[in-house]
């Protein structure tokens, strides 16, 4: 494996996570969200579903993974 596949620490929904995922799409698969109705943001910016495979993860990235909930 090359250097980019080594585990790196990122922040997912506020928690520190060590991952070998190189892209946001790979991270979602790793966390069991592949094909599910979730939305994502990286470092505060929205990442559309179609852009996830082309969105690299870097050490310290802050990732949000959200899904529908009750609301007022």
């Amino acid at each position, binding site marked *: 494996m090359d250097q980019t596949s080594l585990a790196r620490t990122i922040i997912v929904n506020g928690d520190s996570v060590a991952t070998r995922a190189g892209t946001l799409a790979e991270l979602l698969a790793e966390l069991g969200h592949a094909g599910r109705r979730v939305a994502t943001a990286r470092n505060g910016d929205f990442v559309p579903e179609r852009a996830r495979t082309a969105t690299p993860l870097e050490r310290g990235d802050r990732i949000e993974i959200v899904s529908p909930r009750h609301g*007022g």
Partner: protein
Amino acid sequence: MNAIEPSTKAQGAFALYGVELASRLLLGTAQYPSPHVLARAVEASGARLVTVSLRREQARGRTGERFLELIAALNVRVLPNTAGCRTVKEAVTTAQMAREVFGTDWVKLEVIANDDTLQPEVFGLVEAAGLLTKDGFKVLPYTTEDLSVAERLLAAGCEVLMPWGAPIGSGRGLANAYALKSLRAYFPQVPLIIDAGIGAPSHAAEAMEMGYDGVLLNTAVAKAGDPVRMAGAFAKAIEAGRAAFESGLIGMRDMAEPSTPVAGTPFFDLGAPSGHRGDE
């Protein structure tokens, strides 16, 4: 600018962003004792538009999917909110995520200034409303009763305004009825919805009698002893209030005025009983 004068608007149909809605009650979906009660309360309310949110999903979590299934079964339109957002950036990103997940470009825009009052951060609200409108969103801003903020929101592209009645969850009703009346009179053609602070059906009826186009509420139904029955009570109050507004309410008077005809009153020519008459 419009002059402040009593509104005489009386239209049967209720439409937001060109979409006609069969009910003027907009209902929140949070805080119900169970999903079953939520579903029955939405049904009893007659609401055609319900608010929803986005929250963090745990790894391998299915909470969001289950909620979507529940909402889909209700056959209503959803209005995603940006609840809890404190900055323009958070609100814009949340709205963009909501558009993708819920498949709607409608957003109830909230930018919150203060944890105790949950009052709108109106400067950020105006900025976020402009950004989202340019990005194709149909923005329904949760705002205050401030006229100048309302004008900025309209200039930013909002076609609906949602001033608060009172702080979210407080159940205090229309805390500043005078200012809300002014807002109604000032923007007679803009759909205005009272959002937040409603505690009782009478509060909702008061808003509708003022000429507000709709009421958005959540806690007053969800936390009621019987949420399903309370949902029905609000539906009736809102319908009654709207009918009253369209029918033309009488003005208040300082003194009494007989409702029964005075002409032909028996004994009328005898004057007032002695002792009640002035000195002769």
